[in-house]
């Protein structure tokens, strides 16, 4: 096998690794948002209060989301050890479409046409980056 073929195989594996972590991250985002919808915070400085941090973390949806995140982090580290950050980070954008769909289906969020067009631009941008 030529060196370039070996590299190509590694690239596909990296992409799959990132896409699996994207699915986990999108699910985690929606879970955390659902949990945070139940919590009221006064201002940004409320994060300096340990009681508030415990209140956030002890919410089962937020906690579940955070656990999923740490799982995705291990996959991320694996991907990052294989390729440049500037190559793998853009692959994250498939998650914007997924998270937006999840937000509509599970959280009943309203998404304007403008927002979809913005996401479309972002997705097109990542395509360019994937080809570079």
């Amino acid at each position, binding site marked *: 096998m030529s060196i370039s073929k070996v590299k190509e195989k590694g690239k596909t594996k990296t992409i799959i690794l990132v896409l699996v972590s994207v699915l986990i991250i999108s699910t985690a985002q929606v879970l955390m*948002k659902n949990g945070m919808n139940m919590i009221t915070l006064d201002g940004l400085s409320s994060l300096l209060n340990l009681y508030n941090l415990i209140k956030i973390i002890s919410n089962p949806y937020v906690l579940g989301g955070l656990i999923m995140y740490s799982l995705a982090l291990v996959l991320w580290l694996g991907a990052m050890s294989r390729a440049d*950050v500037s190559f793998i980070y853009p692959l994250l954008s498939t998650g914007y479409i997924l998270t937006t769909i999840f937000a509509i289906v599970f959280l009943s969020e309203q998404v304007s046409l403008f*927002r979809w067009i913005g996401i479309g631009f972002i997705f097109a941008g990542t395509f360019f980056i994937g080809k570079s």
Partner: protein
Amino acid sequence: MDILIIVLASILIGSLGQIALKYGMIRTKIVGTREIVKNLFKVFTNFYILLGIAIFAASSFVWLYSMTRLDISFMYPLVSIGYLFVTLFAIIFLKERVSLKRWAGLSLIIIGSLLIMVGV
């Protein structure tokens, strides 16, 4: 403080976390998920990886705070501003090289993010 600035700050801090993690992985010289699982102790005792995780934790709390004020379908696509931050930091701190095509892609991402921010 304007909630949009708070979201962007969270994304900027998160990008710095990415760079710390990448730098840590370069230092450990470990490649691939299997090797990471085998060397979990070495990975999670690396100073830069711990620093990266700490920065991520800070960024996450600011992110969670923003969730009490904004839609996730508005916030999440804005993470793409992080592409610009990470690329700039990767050039400065990790000496990564970025092609013209990647810059073109980044430009589209920036336009998309601006559309989302302006479009409500």
